[in-house]
């Protein structure tokens, strides 16, 4: 874990209310794994108060950079949008566990929706780098919110998208499951996707993991604020998203959370 000050290389709008910021952070780029997150503070003083958690959209070890894809939803991301190249940012990273890529995986599914799929680009790129046949299924309310399509395709993933909200993106995956054996599926950001994958994993026998979100103060487990309920053999317990997560096996999540 690294706590340091890094500088903004670029911060570009993607579409209305969405942006992508690139940070000069070589130590973090060198160690961060797909699914881990970062905490950022990029304003002076005590308002807002908490650092802000973001997923890692990509990490380029050669260039020493990381990218964050964000949606402007409140005061924190509103300030993020205003950052210009050269601005200094406090960063605590990389944090949390990650999407583990096991040696026996031959084919993987990556499922996400809109900006919630932000950490899936880094995951898909890493899966491909490790020679895993990677299918990416992304839904959005309209085509301009399919943010990382070009990156998924450049990485060599099989990319399938859906911009019709009357249908489910998991139905595209379900169709492929009929003729292909998948070893694992990854998702994040949507309880509906977690529920659907939970149903499919029982039928088609694959591992499934989801990255979870909860309000965070510290990002390092100290405040014990960001708990969710997980289930193990019928027993439930609270675990910290920042420390025991953010990635959990979906079989531990099916219950109150989703």
């Amino acid at each position, binding site marked *: 874990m690294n706590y340091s000050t890094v500088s903004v290389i670029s911060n570009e709008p993607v579409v209305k209310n969405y942006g992508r910021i690139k940070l000069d952070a070589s130590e973090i780029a060198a160690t961060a794994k797909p699914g881990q997150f970062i905490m950022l*503070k990029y304003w002076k003083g005590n*308002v807002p108060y908490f650092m802000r958690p973001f997923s890692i959209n990509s990490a380029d070890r050669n260039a020493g950079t990381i990218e964050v894809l964000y949606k402007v939803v409140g005061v924190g991301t509103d300030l993020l949008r205003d950052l210009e190249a050269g601005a200094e940012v406090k960063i605590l990273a990389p944090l949390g566990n990650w999407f583990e890529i096991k040696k026996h995986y031959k084919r993987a599914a990556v499922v996400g929706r809109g900006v919630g799929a932000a950490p899936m680009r880094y995951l898909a790129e890493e899966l491909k780098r490790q020679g895993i046949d990677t299918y990416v299924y992304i839904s959005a309310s309209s085509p301009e919110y399919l943010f990382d399509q070009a990156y998924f395709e450049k990485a060599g993933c099989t990319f399938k998208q859906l911009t019709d909200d009357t249908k489910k993106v998991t139905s595209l995956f379900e169709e492929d499951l009929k003729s292909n054996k998948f070893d694992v599926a990854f998702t994040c950001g949507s309880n509906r996707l977690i529920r659907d994958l939970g149903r499919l994993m029982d039928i088609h026998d694959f591992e499934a993991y989801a990255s979870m979100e909860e309000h965070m*103060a510290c990002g390092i487990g*100290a*405040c014990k604020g*960001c708990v969710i309920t997980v289930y193990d053999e019928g027993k439930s317990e*609270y675990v910290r998203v920042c420390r025991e997560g953010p990635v959990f096996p979906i079989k531990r999540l099916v219950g109150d959370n989703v």
Partner: protein
Amino acid sequence: MYKTDISVKIKSLEMKNPVMPASGAYDYFEDNANVFPMNTLGAIMLKSIHRRERFGNPPPRIAEITAGMMNSVGIPSVGIDKFLAENQPEKYAVLDVPVIISISGNSPEDYVEICQMLEGNPYLAAIEMNLSCPNVGTGLQLSSDEVLLGRTVQACRYMSSFPLIVKLSPNVTHLKKMAQIAEECGADALTIANTYMGLKIDIKKRKPWLGNTTGGVSGPAIKPLTLYHVFQAYRAVTIPIIGCGGIMGWEDAIEYFMAGASAVQVGAGNFVNPMLMKEVIDGIDNYLDQNGFHSLKDIVGIANQKGSSAECGCNL
């Protein structure tokens, strides 16, 4: 090591500097950020260990407010039996820093039982009695009731030979009175104070934001309130005061010392800046050195001289 004498002594508890975490804000083994060595601190303060196992409150447990935060974490704890069965105090010995255990319970008897179980433990340096968590049990805070406070402190004093630090609630009409009762009943020091009861409402969901409805307010927003309590209590007691509330930099710690605190705790600030406690320690030493003070004790209560500003009708 330091340019000035910033050590603090509370009975047998000897700290090389006056800075420690507030209970529950920076537990070593579980989670510190490893951004500085733990033996940088004057003491390590454990998250409150409850008499019995507690899972804590339902989420959401934290909320951001203007210049601060609220929490309704509710002391998740393995309970004292398991804590001791797992030899957890021993694990801190490698750190070479005094370890203060914060204890919590639902009744005076709970506290006495824990003191009894801890008696003679060689890995602990002091006990902080958390009599003021707003997030457990029925919401009753033992330190808000004069009789319960006195009874609990007195019984623990009888049971324990550790330095006893009593953490008071600010949710009272006269904290000064509670401070006096704690001292009379045998406290060796006071932590002033815990969080302030508060409420935040989610107007989209039309219900309280926190899973436990109410929560404790902390952070820089409450610093003037707690500083006032420290200022008042300093005039009422002779035992050391540990100031705790809204410290975001060394300047805040200096204010607490000038009001009458002998040491400080950092809570919510750790969540925002994991380097904060080290920055506060260095800042205190530098401030004393640059202002011609040889010892931290030279500024304790310096802005709180009895008779100098008491005739103001402000009930001091």
